[in-house]
């Protein structure tokens, strides 16, 4: 256990230092303390651009990782992730629609729109799949719902101006470019609501794993519990999506990494690990997003999709082979 914490801490530290020092201008590690104090150009770049971006990456990753674990445990399916259930697409639709239709929305309302969209997608899937009694039916239904929402998004893209199009496309893939302290501070109230709920619902998740009948015998109202889990996941995902777009497949990879780290654990023990892994994944993926094709920035979501899906599938398969 100590070794794992040390390894995770080391990796996180390395990712943080890379995120703060690499790029243009390059800030050597020795100059970082001075730069964090905020003197000169380097100081300005680090404190006003790189630190908020890094904080956002960590917070977004942690939220997505935790939400992914909640959904996977509640629906008893290793593939039940926000992307597969229409939650991510729904949230993105809620944010992108006013953008394209040129309706001006105050910044405070954006998370609300995202939550509305995410809830729409998730609830639609749950209802159509009969509250997830059969794990595989949920995914198929979710895939269909997600596809329909994606189509709506593409229609919006077709309507958009050429200039907006770049921006929207980048957003839809999930991108942390040009995010500032303002975006980060908008997240805290939502997190303050979601985190306690998350802690409260974690024990119920372990019970849901036993299967519907056993959980009911233990006094858990299965449908309500699933609904609550979905609500918490939506609360975690939507604000993140509102700020930096649906960073793809983090909610798939992070929980599987957590399970790999702690094979004998249960939902309660995996939850913090899942959040840490998610933060690590997004922080690491943001490095190639910023640097790989400089000066062009690539969206971080493209990297998480490219690397996350194969890695997650590999982890899942190994786990299945061990079981």
């Amino acid at each position, binding site marked *: 256990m100590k070794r794992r914490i040390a390894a995770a801490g080391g990796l996180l530290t390395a990712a943080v230092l890379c995120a703060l020092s690499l790029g243009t201008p390059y800030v050597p590690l020795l100059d970082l303390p001075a730069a964090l104090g905020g003197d000169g150009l380097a100081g300005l770049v680090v404190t006003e651009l790189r630190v908020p971006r890094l904080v956002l990456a960590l917070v977004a990753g942690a939220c997505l990782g935790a939400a992914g674990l909640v959904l996977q445990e509640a629906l008893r399916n290793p593939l039940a992730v926000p992307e597969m259930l229409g939650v991510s697409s729904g949230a993105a639709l809620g944010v992108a629609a006013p953008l394209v239709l040129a309706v001006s929305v105050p910044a405070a309302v954006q998370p609300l729109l995202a939550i509305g969209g995410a809830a729409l997608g998730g609830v639609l899937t749950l209802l159509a799949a*009969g509250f997830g*009694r*059969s794990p595989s*039916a949920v995914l198929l239904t979710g895939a269909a719902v997600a596809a*329909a929402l994606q189509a709506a998004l593409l229609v919006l893209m077709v309507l958009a101006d050429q200039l907006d199009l770049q921006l929207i496309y980048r957003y839809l893939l999930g991108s942390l470019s040009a995010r500032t302290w303002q975006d980060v501070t908008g997240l805290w109230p939502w997190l303050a609501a979601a985190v306690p709920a998350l802690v409260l619902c974690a024990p119920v998740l372990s019970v849901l794993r036993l299967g519907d009948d056993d959980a009911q015998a233990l006094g858990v109202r299965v449908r309500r519990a699933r609904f609550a889990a979905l609500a918490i996941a939506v609360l975690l995902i939507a604000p993140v999506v509102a700020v930096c777009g649906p960073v793809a497949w983090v909610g798939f990879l992070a929980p599987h990494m957590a399970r790999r780290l702690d094979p004998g654990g249960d939902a309660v023990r995996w939850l913090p690990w899942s959040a840490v892994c998610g933060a690590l994944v997004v922080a690491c993926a943001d490095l190639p997003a910023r640097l790989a094709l400089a000066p062009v920035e690539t969206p971080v979501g493209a990297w998480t999709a490219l690397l996350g*899906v*194969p890695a997650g599938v590999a982890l899942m398969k190994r786990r299945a082979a061990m079981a």
Partner: protein
Amino acid sequence: MSALVPLTARRWPLLLAGLLVLAVGCADLVAGRSLDVRDVWQVFGGGGDPAARHIVLRLRLPRALVALAAGASLGLAGMILQSALRNPLAGPEVTGVTPGAVLGAVTATGLGLAGWRSPAAVVIAACIGGFAGAGLLWLLTGREKSDPARTAVHGVLVSAVLTGLTAMVLLVAPGELGSVVQWLVGSTEGRVWEHWVLLWPWASVWAIAAWIMAGPLTLLRCGDEQAAAAGLATGRARAAALGCAVALTAGAVSAVGALGFVGLLVPHLAFAVFGADLRRALPGAALLGAAVVTGADAGAQWLSRALAGALDMDRLSVPTGALTTCVGAALLLAVARRGTGPE
């Protein structure tokens, strides 16, 4: 069984489907803006003013024909995939073929290897991409090929990876984004005779190939043991069928883009109408696919007109693919519920 059914009873569904295709094609011709039915009729009668003639003969006719050919290709490809893989949820969209083909086409365009000047290169690139996508899924499913739902879910994962790659390519070559978005959702906007000239020979060749394979495919649907017992080399037959399906999909994608759910759902409809004998169901699927895509095109144009009038936005045009995806998703819910059943 089929020998006991009188000949006329076997023919009429196909005839009806043919008539439906004709009707939908005509509807597509008169669905656009700026001309009404009478003008179109005059043009085909040899009259009409030059502008109307140009619109009908140079714009609408090729558009309708491309929609017909692409729809037929997608319907056939879906039918072949579902039969060869014995999976009612297989379709070009969920087996990685369509996203792969889009990736191939986008990459070729982005690298400057292909463009509007050389549409043939786009088809080739889409083909390579389609095979790559299908191959990726093949590797991913491993030993679990028998479970339809799992394969479909893995297909979604493969699509996610390919979509990420496509995004990368698009952001490296941002100039292409506007023209490619139409492709990502599937659209028949601005299709002209050049597209048709390229599409119909390709589609015809592979459609004939599919027709030749109707017998082996029917055997494959019965299961590998039975097919092998009947003297069919199952592996080779399946590989040939998959190749044919990928080629058909690639042709359709390079012409109209990634139309969602046509290849997945048209076969279900065709099996319901024409029965399980592929010698009738295959042409049936082609006809139904053509009718569905052309109908969606007509519907999308009509919807665009209605919406543009209501919202006062001149540039609004609903892409055909958006319509097929939305309707298809609803139908897929029904198919998934019926297919998996209550457990």
